[in-house]
């Protein structure tokens, strides 16, 4: 479904991503883990077409992705951002935010679709005409998820979708994502610094450090303590240490 080959991204003098490669099958959920500055979000944004000037090769369903993405790409790939406070337009109501992708793609039945989308992310219809600042963090992230899904994409990119949320809300959002994934057969890429979150949602993951993938393994192996790379082991240790 998605293939990334030798991806390199530079911002001026900063070499943010160095030769990252991975491949994801349709319906699979893949995690990217690393500390801040490891380049994991950059990989995701390059894949989403939000960053110009990368080198390497990326393809979606066998079709190579160029620097510019067309509308069909955005029909099939959508993203949920880390900060629900920053990813919703501060001057638009939920209604308007959800209507925008429908208008862009010329989809009809906007009214029904918006209502269904809100229902799908378990948001009460009363939030529909509210502004983002009138919503809680969890509600906002649900709106962001509803927006991502309203035009029925097949790939969902998740950039730290829960790290700005309280743990109790995190649980709700993670459950929601798991449900939606199952219901819609979504292919997901999840970027997170939290190993437990990645392990919860993904089957396979790659660990990044300083722009490189240092290790790729499946979750079962991770849970079984079969990680090889010292950085991965460090992360696991800390995760257990603090959670334990």
């Amino acid at each position, binding site marked *: 479904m998605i293939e990334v080959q030798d991806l390199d991204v530079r911002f001026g003098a900063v070499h943010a991503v160095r030769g990252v490669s991975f491949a994801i099958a349709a319906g699979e959920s893949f995690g990217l883990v690393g*500390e801040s500055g490891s380049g994991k979000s950059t990989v995701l944004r390059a894949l989403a077409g939000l960053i110009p000037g990368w080198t390497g090769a990326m393809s979606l369903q066998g079709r190579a992705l160029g620097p510019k993405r067309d509308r069909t790409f955005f029909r099939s790939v959508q993203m949920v951002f880390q900060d629900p406070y920053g990813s919703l337009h501060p001057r638009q109501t939920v209604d308007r935010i959800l209507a925008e992708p429908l208008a862009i793609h010329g989809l009809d039945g906007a009214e029904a679709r918006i209502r269904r989308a809100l229902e799908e992310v378990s948001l009460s219809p009363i939030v529909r005409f509210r502004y983002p600042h009138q919503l809680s963090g969890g509600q906002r992230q649900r709106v962001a998820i509803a927006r991502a899904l309203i035009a029925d994409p097949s790939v969902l990119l998740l950039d730290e979708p829960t790290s700005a949320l*309280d743990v109790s809300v995190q649980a709700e959002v993670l459950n929601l994502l798991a449900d939606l994934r199952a219901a819609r057969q979504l292919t997901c890429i999840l970027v997170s610094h939290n190993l437990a979150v990645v392990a919860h949602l993904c089957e396979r993951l790659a660990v990044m450090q300083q722009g490189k993938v240092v290790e790729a393994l499946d979750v079962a192996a991770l849970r079984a303590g079969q990680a090889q790379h010292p950085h991965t082991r460090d992360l696991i240790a800390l995760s257990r240490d*603090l959670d334990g």
Partner: protein
Amino acid sequence: MTNPLVEINDLRVDFPGPNGFVPAVRGVSLTMGREKLGIVGESGSGKSVTGRALMRLLPPQARVAGSLRFDGIDIAAATPRAMRALRGARIGLVLQDPKFSLNPIMTAGAQIAEAWATHRRGSAKEARDAAMSLLDQVLIRDPRRVYDAYPHELSGGMGQRVMIAMMLAPQPDLLIADEPTSALDATVQAEILRLIDRLVTDRGMGLMLISHDLPLVSRFCDRVAVMYAGRIVEEIAARDLHAATHPYTRGLLDCMPRLDAPRARLPVLARDPRWLA
């Protein structure tokens, strides 16, 4: 222990909103000595407000009621001068993100030296030496370089060490650490918390660790107070946390995904309106 270090009795704090005052803290009572107390709660639970109320650092619009005592001193009645003598000298405050909580245009050393010099009499040289030694104590390997560095030149972990050094400079009796590590990477987080833990223990100070992260707090504190919607719902010794009784505390502990135990669905916290009563 004759006098408790901190005595908070029925603290209430309201902030003005567009439609009248909105309560942030609703009757918190708390006593602590020279111990390590964790205050845990989700965003908006009033934990930070409680900490800042103790130092009278809330914005002037805030309405504060109830009694706050530090080492027997009535915080609400203290003169501004007396408050200044308390702040820094006897109570230190470590804030969340050194990127914002350090003055961006003063060198790290100057900020530490200033904290020292404000409460101690001494020459500029003495202040500088004291700052150097403090940087050394927070385990900075190259104090000279860090002394002359500006905050933006320091990593998050370094910045937080500077912050701690600064707050320890006048040797306070109590350190309030308000989410001291939530802006940091996990690897650094642990180092900083261990550092705080060690310094506080060595000096026999009190520590009030304010955090949203219940497991983390419980590892470093003796006692944990769990706050929900402006009040304390449960106070419990850290080692007894697994036996917490309040459904909120229990919910917080359960709802996290775990690396060692995969779960198909995460238990979701069901908020009970009765908790507010």
